[in-house]
């Protein structure tokens, strides 16, 4: 964390995002869940919750970097679907091949995004919208529009189903490692600071002689790679590569990033708060599932999409209000 001589928990949790409230909301929801549902605090629920949401957390972190530069990546959902198919095909060779393969497949789409945005100067949302389409088409082509079952004989499925050192599932451990590494990159390296500077003012970053293009290539590669990793998790967790998955994932990721206090226009952001945002969004669905289970409400799967949109709407309203009050204060 910039500047503090001792470890500053507040700074760590919030980064320089504008919203420490996400942690409070998260804590409140957890307390609510613990009080209301018997099995909420069970090891099973916690582990399966984290396991399922690891995909969204990893995508949100990648998205966070893109948004901090003032860009956007709408392709993450289809890229994850594409990567899940690739990973499923590679699964007979084991996790050692399938995992890097999936991540590389995702990063390849990230490279296409970076090329379109930086070399061809196409606005990020158009470029990534096009890759969304291309990745979707690509996933359907290589899978023949079928879900591709993974090889259950190899060690591939252990990723989602077995625990590292008998404590936590591998996916959660990997997400934690990725999050910590990226936190260090953002807070402690020149590259991370350049990412934030670009979002603050790209012109100024250029005039300061920062390596703007390198940082932009990095964020789109990262976002693609994160989406690829999420695809690997998807394939291992559900035992199949799923070319039709990923619809609306970009929305979840954007919502998580924004609720974590990252400015949509870039320049300010936090990895830790983004993780909290992703957990918060996941928890909303977790609690809705519990309510469904208790029979107090009965929501079809279609409500998920409505709720995701509604969640983003509320978050944006909050951020708008926050910005307005900040401007008044300034």
């Amino acid at each position: 964390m910039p500047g503090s001589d001792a470890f500053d928990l507040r700074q760590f949790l919030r980064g320089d995002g504008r919203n420490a409230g996400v942690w409070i909301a998260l804590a409140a929801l957890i307390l609510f869940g613990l009080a209301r549902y018997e099995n909420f605090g069970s090891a099973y629920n916690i582990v399966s919750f984290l396991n399922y949401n690891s995909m969204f957390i990893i995508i949100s972190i990648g998205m966070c970097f893109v948004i901090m530069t003032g860009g956007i990546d709408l392709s993450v959902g289809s890229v994850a679907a594409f990567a899940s198919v690739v990973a499923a095909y590679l699964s007979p060779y084991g996790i050692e091949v399938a995992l890097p393969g999936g991540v590389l497949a995702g990063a390849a789409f990230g490279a296409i995004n970076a090329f379109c945005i930086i070399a061809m100067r196409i606005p990020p949302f158009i470029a990534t919208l096009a890759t969304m389409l291309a990745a979707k088409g690509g996933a359907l082509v290589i899978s023949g529009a079928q879900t591709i079952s993974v090889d259950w004989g190899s060690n591939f499925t252990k990723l989602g189903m077995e625990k590292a050192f008998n404590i936590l599932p591998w996916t959660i451990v990997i997400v934690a490692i990725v999050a910590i590494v990226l936190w260090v990159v953002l807070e402690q390296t020149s590259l991370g600071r350049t990412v934030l500077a670009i979002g603050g003012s790209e012109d100024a970053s250029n005039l300061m002689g920062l390596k703007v293009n390198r940082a932009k290539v990095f964020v789109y590669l990262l976002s693609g790679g994160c989406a690829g990793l999420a695809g690997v998790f998807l394939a291992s967790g559900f035992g199949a590569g799923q070319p039709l998955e990923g619809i609306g994932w970009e929305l979840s990721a954007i919502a998580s990033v924004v609720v974590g206090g990252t400015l949509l226009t870039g320049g300010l952001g936090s990895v830790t708060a983004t993780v909290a945002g992703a957990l918060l969004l996941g928890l909303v669905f977790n609690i809705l599932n519990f309510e469904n289970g208790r029979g107090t409400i009965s929501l079809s799967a279609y409500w998920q999409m409505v709720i995701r949109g509604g969640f983003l709407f509320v978050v944006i309203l909050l951020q708008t209000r926050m910005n307005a009050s900040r401007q008044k204060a300034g």
Partner: protein
Amino acid sequence: MSDGSLSNGKAVSRAPAPLSLGTLRNHGGLIALVLILAFNALFTPNFLQVQTLFVNISQVATIAIVAIGMTLVIATAGIDLSVGAVMALAGALAPLIFLSDFGQAYPALGIAAAFVLPLLAASLCGLFNGIMISYLNVQPIIATLILFISGRGIAQVLTNGNLQTFSNPYFSYLGTGKILGLPFQGWLALVLALAVYWLVSRTIFGRYLLAVGGNERAARLAGAPVRMVKIGAYVLCAFLSGIAGLIVVAINSASDAARNGNLMELDAIAAAVVGGALLQGGRAPIFGAILGAVIIQLVKYTLLANGVEDEVALIAKAAIIVLAVYIQQARKE
């Protein structure tokens, strides 16, 4: 640099080199159209038949209608990702209304309501987008992303995710009727294009629209009601998307909330951009959007008719969008 000497002669004398990027930009659409038509005439079996024309007209109408709306939004330097979802919503509502008890009891009223209410709902979606963008200053991509996802979700919640089939000749006329032997929706698209063209070129709204897209601050300081103009553009876009949604339902005699208008936002953006709309705003080439829609449709048809899979067609479409924006983009530099 002496002021006053940047004479008019300069603009005139800038003759475009043959087949330069400039030529592509100004006539790229037409060139592409001719190339595709020539290709099809030569290689696609049964292309030069009336039936082919019918199929393409009935398919292109929906793209064209949405592309007209998208062109208006892009003219304000905005974007609307929610058009497909709005189509699904309007399309899901219509059969719900005329298949309801009320609709069965009063068929005429039911049909009327099945047109009016879905379009009203669509317009409300546009109003939501417009208010988010102009009053809350949310970026258009993000603001319309909300309905992009939840709009379709609402449509699916309403229909419980079921395919609603129906047989209602009055409603189906929208998708299957013919005037002078040509599909009704083709005529409808043409009439809407003329109306919007008139709106853009002859009315105060149209002039303000282009001014807001061309220089928002200047427009506001010259008295343009910037917020209202933007809201108007999004409402019109959503309204037109609603019409397109109804047409799709009428063509299929069935409403499928999961598929109606799926990926339409991409077709519409591509058509608008191929037709000459600038993402930076300030231009609203309505007939360009129609031309763009025709090209997009013909590309789809060409790939399909020559046995290329749907999935590969998606990739081709992605390439077209990137290429079209790239060519348009170069214009500003």
